[in-house]
């Protein structure tokens, strides 16, 4: 399924925040988790995740820390902050509203 670019971009923030809410993670693992959760429907260009993470870091929703990884290289780990969780909750409400509205109208279309 080809998803529109705008939709991918709009869903990136809540998705990344939600994955980080599960626990600290790093870029490659986040990408893998997205693919896993969406069953491969949501294909991100890998590189594009990083500007999103950096933007979230800048907005204070996540903090980043370099630490050693199991393969010996330094790796940048991201952790969600309190503001990040609040933002996630807010976005969740918004997505719920969108989802509920669309669901309503599509259910009607089915029953008519």
């Amino acid at each position, binding site marked *: 399924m080809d998803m529109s670019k705008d939709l991918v971009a709009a869903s990136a923030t809540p998705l990344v925040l939600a994955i980080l809410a599960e626990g600290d993670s*790093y870029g*490659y693992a986040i990408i893998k988790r997205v693919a896993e959760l969406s069953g491969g429907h949501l294909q991100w260009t*890998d590189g594009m995740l990083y500007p999103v993470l*950096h933007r979230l870091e800048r907005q204070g929703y996540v903090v980043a820390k370099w630490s050693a990884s199991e393969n010996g290289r330094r790796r*940048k780990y991201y952790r969600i902050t309190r503001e990040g969780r609040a933002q996630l909750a807010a976005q969740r409400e918004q997505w719920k509203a969108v989802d509920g509205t669309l669901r309503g109208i599509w259910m009607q279309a089915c029953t008519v």
Partner: protein
Amino acid sequence: MTTTFADQPLEEQIAQWRAYLRRRRAVHSPDVEELEGHLRDQLTALTASGLAADEAFLVAVKRMGNLDALSREFARAHSERLWKQLVVAPDVDAPASTSRTELLVVLSLAVAAGLAVKLPTLFGHHLNPDEDVNAFYIRNASLFAFPLLAIYFMWKRGLSAVSGLWLGLPFAAAAVFANVFPFHNRERLDNFPQGSDTQLLTVLHLPIALWLMAVGVAYVGGRWFASGRRMDFVRFSGELFIYYVLIALGGGVVTGFTVMLFSAIDTKAGWFIGGWLIPCGAAGAVIVGSWLVEAKQSVIENMAPVLTRLFTPLFTILLLGFLATMAWTGSPINVEREMLIGFDLLLAVVVGLVLYAASARDPQARPDFFDGLQLLLVVSALVVDVVALAAIAARISEFGFTPNRVAALGENLILLINLLWTAWLYASFLRRRGSFADLEKWQIGYLPVYAMWAALVVVVFPPLFGYR
């Protein structure tokens, strides 16, 4: 999992990819490291699932996405990175300690330059804003900051103490020639008709000679005649000029506020402004400006060639308009006494435009419209100058040969020869008979002529004209 891949070609491909990403201005080296880590994780997973190394690389790079789009996204997330690169992050690859040492050296030298200005006070040469300008200071102006600038470049280029001693020679000679001559009324500069013309010539020519012969040599690392780095020095000089003007504008604002604030509490700050702030600041700014030019040369586009592009058409229109008007109205050039100096300056500006256009041009590029415009500029400047010279020559016997006029005439001749040959080289370049490199070589090779002439004026003119 391993840190590096045993597969040598794969490591090379990764290195290439990394180098390619490094060139992006918006992507800093920690980001490159983060992205490379991702690429390696991806490669590990792909090869583990059975892909050959080169296939895995293709897939991983494809998934990473278009690097242009990626660096655009980075630029959007960090828009300041496209701007704030100068002092904050001069070179991301250089260790922080080097740039900190350099900053320390630069600041010490700048302070030393400021103090050097006050040194003569110990020997009775005061800078008093309430009196006339002290001619001692103006004769020696270039000797306050330039030696320290030379030291900065010696440090930066790692020159030995021996070459340092050699570099000291021109400065020592300059100090001698600026001060031993018994100029008429040597302590005053501004009271025509008693003020000495030859002293004024020394004031104007000594900085040019020292800049080219001493600072230039230090800049290129002590190899003035052997090296091909002269053009870099030309570029440096142009950029420094622009930075200096900018710093001076800022200095003017500081001065204005100093006056305003202290006069608000009825305290006279004139002695501080005229005796310390302006002279010491002017000397220190030479060092700081040079450091800024050195630090940013790889970061920000050079300004001098940009200004050249802007002003070459304007000057061409000006000169053509002047010639057309003169031809139309038939009014001859009204020869004033000091007219020659004005035409010298005009030629100097045209030579500067040619030089800075050449400094930014790719010598291999084919002739384009701008080259034609340059030729037109040079030819029209030549015509204007020849017309002016004819008018002046007709009356030069009437004026007599004063030191000023001989110096101005000599300079006119030097610039005229330069521009004549430049026009010839440009014309053959435009007709594809020669290369642009010839023109660059000519301009660069001509630089010592200016230095020699300036030195000649300083050394020979005062005794020749009896210190008038």
